[in-house]
């Protein structure tokens, strides 16, 4: 099972839209895909109409009293399952802080699912926390959406520094431009960002589009209701690039 984490500790950059589309496209291509919605806002769970039916509790999970597999629920999309956001996941950070080797404990939770799924996507909460660190330690690829703005570049540089500091300097990181609005000059020419980025940017840029906003209204990925639209085409390209990195 390959693990892809979609992350940015800066909020509002299109992180959930990215993970929703990458996971749905992977499933559409026939890969048995699991999306773990770790964001307490539960936006990915909302889009896929999956609600958590039972509160399990982060501590019980980490203590091995409950299995993560019990919480897996299939979405409307063939080959796509979801671990819905649970309010108790907010406490996963605290619970991880209480155990030894938190990264290994989180990896241990996932182990029983390794044979069932080909791909695991993490929708990470926008914070640089112990949970995020544990996810980074497991991930094969870290996908980072960036809005073309100086603060985004700063956040990426901070992430790079943090990964190096934590001994994760080898982690494959794939930043890409998200919510690109051609009306803005900073967005039209983003070469400055590419030049200063600590990681090479993926070639695909996701355009700003009201269609992407509609995803949460229609509760479907954009390719399902506007397959030929620019964002749908862009997400296809992004998935192809991400797949190529795995």
């Amino acid at each position, binding site marked *: 099972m390959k693990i892809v984490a979609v992350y940015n500790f800066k909020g509002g950059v299109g992180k959930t839209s990215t993970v929703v589309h990458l996971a749905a496209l992977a499933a559409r*291509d*026939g*890969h*048995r895909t699991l999306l773990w919605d770790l964001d307490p806002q539960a936006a990915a769970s909302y889009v896929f*109409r*999956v609600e958590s*039916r039972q509160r399990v509790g982060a501590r019980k999970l980490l203590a091995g009293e409950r299995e993560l597999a019990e*919480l*897996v*629920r*299939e*979405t*409307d999309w*063939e*080959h*796509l*399952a979801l671990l819905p956001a649970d309010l108790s996941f907010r406490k996963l950070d605290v619970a991880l802080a209480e155990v030894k080797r938190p990264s290994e404990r989180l990896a241990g939770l996932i182990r029983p699912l390794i*044979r*069932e799924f*080909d791909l695991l996507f993490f929708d990470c909460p926008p914070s640089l926390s112990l949970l995020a660190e544990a996810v980074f330690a497991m991930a094969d690829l870290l996908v980072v959406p960036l809005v073309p703005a100086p603060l985004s570049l700063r956040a990426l540089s901070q992430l790079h520094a943090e990964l190096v500091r934590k001994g994760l300097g080898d982690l494959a990181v794939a930043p890409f431009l998200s919510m690109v609005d051609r009306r803005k000059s900073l967005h039209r020419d983003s070469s400055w960002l590419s030049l200063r980025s600590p990681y090479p940017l993926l070639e695909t840029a996701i355009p700003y589009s009201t269609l992407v906003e509609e995803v949460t209204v229609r509760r479907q990925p954009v390719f399902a209701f506007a397959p030929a639209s620019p964002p749908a085409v862009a997400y296809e390209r992004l998935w192809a690039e991400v797949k190529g990195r795995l």
Partner: protein
Amino acid sequence: MAEAGRRSYRVRDEGEVERLLEALAGAFALGPRRRLARRRQLFDTYDRRLLAEGRLLFREAGAGKGSLELTHEEGRSEVRLAEAAEPGLIAEMPPGRLREALATTVADRRLLPLVAIEERGFALALLDERGKTVARLAVVGRRAEAGEGKPARLARRAVLEPLRGYEGESEAAASALGAILATPAEGFRAEIDEALVATGQPLVPPSPKVEVPLDPAEPVVAAAGRMVGELTRVLVALEPGTRKALDPEFLHDFRVALRRLRSLVREVERVAPGHGVKRLRSELGAIAGRTGPCRDFDVLAADLAGHAAEMPAWAAEGLAILDHHVALRRAEAQREVAAALASGRWRRLLAALDHFARRAAATAAPEAAPIGEVARRRLAKAQRRFAREAEALGTHPAPEALHALRITGKRYRYLLELFAPLFPRPSLAPLVDELKQVQDLLGRANDFAVQGEKLRQLAAEAAHSAPRALAAGMAVGYLLARLESARGDLTRPLARALERLAKPAQRRRAERLFGGSE
């Protein structure tokens, strides 16, 4: 990624479909109908090892290469490759989870297309009150296709696929379907069995080790007729795979069936000459003769592959040359097999076997003694002859003596297997097991002798035609030394196995089972 618990129901007519949709609409909102058209091809080894374990390997054509999925009978997916080429030999598959999951079961057998199931119809989602899919339903017309045969129509089916995390809803849907449909829910296996039957394939893979139930009081010719009929059907079933060389084991099993038939016909000839059995025996011998060299090259090729890993570097180049020559000679021998099985002579033999089987099976009057009596007499004699030859071997037996004992043992073993249904299995099993051990060792010794001869021939060929004759000669030299050493290694285990077979307890067991002399 359908969860365990997939249910499939036979649907009789359109009215039933309407009624089941109405019933489901009472409990769920139904999503829009989506057209469904798919073709799934089931792969397995020639002896259906995956099906025996309750595992199904499906290939589904897609936009790209097509997917390959290993599932369990109840629908649980074990491994899925979104894009994969047709499976063949495990060694040729890309490394990864599917290869790992199949390796132990499939080993060095080739994965072959067993049957293709084409489905056309519609699918829809069963939705809960929030519009979330909680189960999927497909209603499909189906047909099956195997080999070069015509497609066969299968029963129309409604298939309910539960979704993980919504098991309660699936149960509710299953209850609604169960109340409407006349037939009970079935699993994947029932669908496969239906497709196999519809395409004229046996539910149990053809095996030369088929056991025909025997009544000891039955006239020997009538019983032999049924056995010949069964073994002929096995030959016919194995013939396409043997002719096309789909897997070396087809030829192996084909030849075992031939040998069993020859053995059986020989017995009939002894007790009831006539019936054209002499001619049958000589024709079976002719086919065995035309298929033998190919089998020898199969064994040699497998053994060379086994040697490759341990081959010193100085001999490795020569081994590659030998491999090439073996492949050429094997291809020649395979053409001979294909020609033999495409010949009118082979068709006439099959017709003659069939004729014998039907005429003999219908024999009412006891032309000779009942089969129970004949079997005991013949087995007693074969056992004594084998024991006598084994005792006479001495500590350093000549290769010719070992070869003669192997032939005698083979005849004894085939008789034991043919007549096995006449004896209590627990009593017969120790005799068969001990004999099998001896035969395996004798068989290996014989393989080494045959291979030595073939290697010398190949070396001579390579000396004439290959630019690297020296390398080939060095490899042959190395291999001959290994064969000789391996042959030497067999001496002690063979002596021990023969000792066990000669134990008074084994003899008494044989005497108790088979009684007095002929």
